[in-house]
């Protein structure tokens, strides 16, 4: 069994957990004076600043689209549309692939070896002994809505044959309106297997590691307003961050307390400009 396939296999189980946090719903929060903004993807140091990204500071609707993200091993998509306006914002991502087909960079596989070794042996044993066994018995009960949809035989086949996109979806949409948000996802697939999404609460964090925080349908309010994000991964206390589809809604602009700036009086001088 190839390590590349195993990396996808292990990640699949992580995604199983994460997928239970997906939600179609809304929560409310308080809004504060701030512009509305929306962006498709942010990865610290990679897609940084986020792309595509629009901000409406004056209430006029701003929109942008992007057909391709900068080359990176974590995220791929075919189209991203972001819109921000007066108290509303939305993001639509089409054909999203997380850890796309083609596997991981060799350096990553090498770095992951200590972690993958026990996974490799475990999966090898599982698939060798009884590929048809029910996975749900091995996973926490709250994952039943997902695990009962998956075929362990198919997962073993995938592990043997190579890794399709770890997690993919035909369409991911987040939107906010004032202080409420929505999140929708169409045709979510784990390693090529389509699964249905249950509807757990927003902001269900995935307890993977003390240094890692993964949240699906993250919703929060801060000084910038109310924000909803399809997926947010924070590492090393926020030093590294991955955000997929983020929409932030401010409220109507409050006029700043600063005095009005003066009208300028032209001075007589000489500065050759570019003409």
């Amino acid at each position, binding site marked *: 069994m190839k390590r590349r396939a195993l*990396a996808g296999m292990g*990640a699949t*189980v*992580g995604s199983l*957990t994460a997928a239970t946090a997906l939600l179609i719903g809304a929560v409310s929060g308080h809004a504060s004076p701030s*512009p509305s*903004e929306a962006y498709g993807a942010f990865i*610290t*140091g990679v897609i940084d*600043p986020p792309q595509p*990204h*629009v*901000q*409406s*500071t*004056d209430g*006029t609707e701003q929109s942008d689209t992007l057909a391709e993200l900068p080359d*990176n091993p*974590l995220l791929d998509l075919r189209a991203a549309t972001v819109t921000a306006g007066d108290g509303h914002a939305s993001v639509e991502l089409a054909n999203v692939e997380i*850890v796309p087909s083609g596997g*991981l960079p060799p350096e*990553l596989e090498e*770095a*992951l070896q200590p972690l993958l070794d*026990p*996974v490799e*042996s*475990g*999966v090898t044993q599982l698939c060798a002994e009884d590929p048809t066994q029910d996975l749900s018995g*091995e*996973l926490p009960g709250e994952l039943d809505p997902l695990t009962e949809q998956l075929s362990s035989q198919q997962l073993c086949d995938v592990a043997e044959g190579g890794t399709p996109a*770890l997690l993919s979806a035909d369409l991911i949409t987040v939107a906010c309106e004032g202080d409420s948000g929505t999140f929708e996802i169409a045709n979510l697939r784990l390693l090529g297997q389509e699964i249905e999404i249950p509807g757990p609460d927003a902001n269900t964090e*995935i307890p*993977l*590691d003390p*240094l*890692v925080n*993964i949240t699906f349908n993250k919703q929060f309010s801060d000084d910038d307003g109310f924000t909803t994000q399809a997926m947010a*991964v924070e*590492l090393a206390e926020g030093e*590294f961050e991955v955000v997929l589809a983020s929409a932030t809604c401010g409220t109507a*602009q409050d006029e*700043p307390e*600063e*005095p*009005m*700036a003066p*009208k*300028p*009086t*032209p*001075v*007589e*001088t*000489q*500065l*050759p*400009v*570019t*003409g």
Partner: protein
Amino acid sequence: MLSAAAGVLAVLVVLAGLMWMIGSSDGAEHPGRAQQGEQDGRAGQPGRSGQSETGTDTVELVDSTTHTTVEGAPVDPAPRQGTDGIIVHPLRPTPVHAEPGGEAIARMTPTQISDTWLPVIDERDGWVRVLLPSRPNGSTGWLRGEDLERAFTPYTIRVHLESMTLRLLFRGDEIGSWPIGIGKADTPTPAGRTFLLGSFTDAEQQFSPVILPLGSHSDTLDDFGGGPGTVAIHTWPTEDVLGTATSHGCIRVPRDALDRLTEVPLGTLVLVDQQ
């Protein structure tokens, strides 16, 4: 085995992120020592320099003006975003820092061509981040809030290169739109976020009753006509240049546009995009 596998996705993200962070460690935001740029202009105070207030060594700091280049200035992280209209004016010569409390990279003086007014793009713990008038385009720096007078400008100027249109917004509402002339192919008008740096008359220039220099510079001309390649908004003796890409980078506007734009406070944001 399965609980260990659940962490693989997170670890993938961590390692990939760290790799990218290491790979991009020579990125744009490197504090560095300011260096003197061109000093052959006449407006402003080119060439005058101050002393760094940080560290024990005496460091010559270049004034950040349209005549100079400030190396190590952090790059504008959001060159297409608007702001909330806050602008600042140095009350006294004040150091420009690469980050709040970090190394001083330049000095900002109260007066350059006119009174110095700079748009605020970020604030943090008593520090404000502003756009700089010096090269290279997209330079920003942090100033101590206690050294600054604050004001509010309700205006935003939007320049669309593809449609060769300039729009003037007041509190987010368009109050004027005009055809413009822009830079030709080999001397294009630079896109990005800049600001109204000054307002001056020049008896030796016949093409415009008032010239409005911006914080940006030609990317292809290191100097022009004895000046530092400063981009400006101004009129032109004939209106057949409107709707054409024939300038050396400047933005040529009709007379009625200039009449409105000369009412706009210095420091007002100018957003130049490719639309």
